[in-house]
């Protein structure tokens, strides 16, 4: 970008120009006023001198002592700060002068010294004091001179003096003219002017530098960072974050920008996920239709045959297996459809150990072929859990097949170890709020804004002047809430249902941690969850959940001695269509597993070391 077109240089130039005009005007004004003051001083001095000459010669004039007057004028005129003193009579003839060569000369009434009083040939008699002063140059190349004339008026003492030189009718007898050289003064004025100009230029340059620096620091750099950030975001890097150290408007802009990119990045993630889910749905629909037709043939004929051969026990056993396994296929296809539609599993009380044993018997042949040993270390005290047995069996079959694939066919075999145990865990931080409603039973669950890929709980918040949504973390105790509104600390926040605006605030029950207002929503059948309206406060309370104390869980670990999963791939393995098996897998297995475990309010986590193997840990709550 050309320098002159940047915001910083424009601002600097504009401020500089304004400063230049202001400083120049000030300098000119200051210099003029200095000059005026100096001249006034010289003028006063000249006037004083003129009065002193007039007074010191007055007596001699009355006595008509001409020689004494000559001497007085000459001596005073010898002072180097005085250029010349002269007295003219009414006719313009120089009678006395400090310059004796001038005596007797007649001055032209149009001469420099005379024009003030003698305009248009008419002799003036009264001249204002201010107008008696004049500044002029005798020659164009000589220095300036200040002259002051002092009319000598006819007084009674004059007209009645012994000499009787002046008749009573005369008003002005002559003029005293004193001229002083202004060379020193002019030098001082010039020096002053030079100083002012230097000062002005210095101030201007300093100002420009300071303004330039500040503008660069406060405006140009932050703006450049913002521009750079927008380029990154436009280029697809939604993880780019601007440093937010500033507290001014540009800092706020940076914060909003970061907030925006974070939202964008989440939205894009969801879009990708939902896109994948949509393709999964189409795929599932296609698979279901294609597979269910041939399966119908198998199931109808085998079940029909089973019914008709009740008297042949040796066939009955085999047919039973065919029917049972075909029904399992039906459930698998159905769960694929269910997963694509995120439907609810069909749960019943079941022993997880039995489900694992059944899954093991299904994959037994495949494992033996790969020389993989399946070690079952099933805990004896594992309680019954409320699960969809078919879905859970599918989970374990998938995990076993994955593990077997990770060990691989050419490695000389390996071991899969599956262990089950019961454990007690605090429900805080691991319980997902899946249903939430306002007093009028509107659901607050929002599937669009997800926190950790789980639908959030959306409430509307209103403060003085602003309104927005708060998305509460569905995982109770984690408090990773998202705020679409930023209330100042200490401000009262009203929280309400986004649909019907029913108030959710709990009056008279301030937050025990920070004292701010609290609100609550109902989890149908499971009491109320309370929360704090203060953004900085993480307090929340779910009495119904917490009074139950620690919850019973069944933990299942499936560990293999396979090739392991690289660390950077771990976060993605539960995504639909993400496969580490290349052409071999369809990338649906772990996504389906994740969906099933999530539908059981459980959790699944993975740990892996390349070359060591992989461990999947599943936790299922005993109470659904």
């Amino acid at each position, binding site marked *: 970008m050309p320098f002159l077109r940047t915001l910083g240089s424009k601002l600097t130039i504009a401020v500089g120009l304004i400063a230049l005009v202001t400083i120049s005007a000030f300098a000119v004004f200051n210099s003029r006023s200095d000059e005026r003051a100096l001249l006034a001083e010289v003028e006063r001095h000249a006037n004083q001198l003129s009065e002193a000459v007039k007074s010191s010669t007055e007596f001699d004039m009355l006595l008509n002592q001409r020689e004494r007057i000559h001497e007085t004028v000459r001596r005073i005129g010898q002072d180097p700060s005085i250029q010349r003193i002269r007295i003219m009579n009414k006719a313009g003839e120089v009678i006395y002068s400090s310059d004796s060569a001038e005596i007797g000369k007649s001055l032209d009434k149009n001469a420099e010294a005379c024009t003030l009083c003698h305009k248009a040939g008419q002799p003036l008699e009264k001249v204002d004091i201010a107008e008696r002063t004049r500044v002029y140059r005798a020659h164009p190349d000589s220095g300036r001179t200040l002259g002051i004339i002092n009319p000598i008026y006819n007084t009674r003492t004059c007209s009645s003096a012994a000499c009787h030189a002046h008749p009573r009718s005369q008003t002005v007898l002559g003029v005293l003219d004193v001229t002083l050289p202004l060379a020193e003064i002019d030098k001082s004025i010039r020096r002053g002017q030079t100083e002012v100009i230097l000062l002005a230029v210095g101030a201007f340059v300093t100002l420009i530098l300071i303004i330039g620096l500040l503008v660069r620091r406060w405006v140009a750099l932050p703006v450049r960072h913002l521009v750079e950030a927008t380029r990154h975001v436009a280029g697809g890097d939604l993880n780019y974050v601007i440093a937010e150290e500033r507290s001014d408007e540009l800092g706020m802009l940076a914060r909003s920008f970061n907030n925006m990119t974070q939202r964008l990045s989440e939205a894009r993630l969801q879009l990708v996920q939902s896109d994948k889910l949509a393709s999964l749905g189409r795929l599932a629909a296609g698979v279901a239709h294609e597979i269910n037709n041939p*399966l119908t*043939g198998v*199931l109808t*004929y085998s079940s029909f045959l089973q019914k008709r051969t009740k008297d042949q026990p040796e066939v009955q056993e085999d047919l039973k297996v065919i029917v049972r396994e075909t029904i399992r296929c039906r459930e698998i296809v159905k769960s694929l459809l269910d997963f694509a539609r995120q439907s609810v599993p069909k749960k019943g009380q079941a022993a997880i150990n039995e489900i694992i044993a059944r899954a093991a018997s299904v994959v037994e042949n495949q494992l033996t072929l790969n020389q993989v040993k399946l070690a079952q270390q099933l805990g004896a005290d594992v309680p019954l859990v409320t699960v969809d047995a078919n879905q859970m069996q599918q989970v374990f079959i998938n995990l076993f097949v994955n593990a077997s694939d990770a060990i691989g066919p050419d490695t000389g075999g390996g071991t899969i170890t599956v262990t089950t145990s019961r454990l007690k865990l605090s429900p805080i931080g691991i319980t997902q709020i899946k249903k939430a409603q306002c007093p009028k039973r509107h659901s607050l669950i929002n599937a669009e804004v997800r926190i950790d890929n789980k639908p959030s709980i959306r409430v509307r918040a209103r403060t003085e002047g602003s309104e927005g949504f708060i998305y509460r973390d569905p995982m109770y105790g984690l408090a990773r809430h998202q705020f679409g509104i930023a209330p100042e600390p200490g401000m009262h926040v009203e929280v309400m249902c986004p649909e019907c605006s029913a108030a959710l605030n709990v009056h008279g029950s301030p937050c025990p941690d920070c004292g701010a207002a609290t609100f609550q929503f109902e989890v149908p059948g499971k009491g109320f969850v309370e929360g704090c309206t203060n953004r900085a406060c993480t307090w929340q309370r779910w009495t119904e959940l917490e009074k139950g104390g620690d919850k019973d869980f069944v933990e299942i670990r499936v560990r293999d001695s396979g090739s392991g999963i690289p660390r950077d791939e771990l976060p993605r393995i539960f995504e639909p269509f993400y496969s580490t098996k290349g052409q071999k897998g369809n990338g649906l297995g772990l996504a389906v597993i994740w969906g099933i475990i999530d539908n059981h309010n459980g959790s699944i986590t993975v740990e892996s070391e390349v070359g060591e193997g992989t461990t999947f840990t599943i936790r299922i709550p005993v109470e659904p």
Partner: protein
Amino acid sequence: MKPARDILVVDDEDVITHAVQRVCTADGLTVDVASDAAEGMGRVLRAGYRLIISDVMMADVDGFMFLVDLRKRRISTPVILTTGMSTMQNAVRALGAGAIDFIPKPFTSDELLASVRRGLVYARLQAEAEATAHDARPDTIAWVPPPPSYYRLGYASWLLAERDGTAKVGVTDLFLRTVDAPTAFTLAAEGDELVQGSSCATITAADGLEHGVLGPVTGRVVEVNAAVAESPAGVERDPYFEGWLYRVLPSELQYDLHHLTACSSDRM
């Protein structure tokens, strides 16, 4: 017009039509086969059947359109829809469109037979009702419809939204009458999740067949009618009041109601 045959099977997969034919013929029924909707319509117009079993996804016209075509032509033969797209949504849609039952593929021979037998009874009851429709005071009532404030899914189950936000769920009188002598009810447990369009209860008949009742609502069972679990006779006596099956906390009642038929509209 007396039907020439009992059942018409419409499906573009031979293995399905053959399997259905095999199972039904063994049960003593006569079966015709058509491989698409156009052929099926031709056969219906020529002969007439007591019951039609049609696939949803066919090459020319889908099962829903086929059903609408039949009704436009004032053919009231009961239709059972079946599809490989065995989702609850399709089940609900099929019953909403006027199918008397929905069998998700793949099905066992018993599941097929149970549905077919119910369908044939339904056809008979319907014929009887039509025969007495013009009588001012019919001697017998074929079946008792649910009260007007109720909602129903097809003719199988009903739902009554209560003031406290829960909903009562039960099975209709007509469905019970199509089941040949119910002997036992297998119900979901308290706390179980019901799904609209999925079987919410199983009725075992005297002939040993199990009849799944497609549930009208998605939600958690908060109460099971203990009296019904003990003795199924109570349901038959009073299916709409004393004979309710569950009290359910619906997840999305408004959404579910959208797919149900208001019983008040049945009496117009």
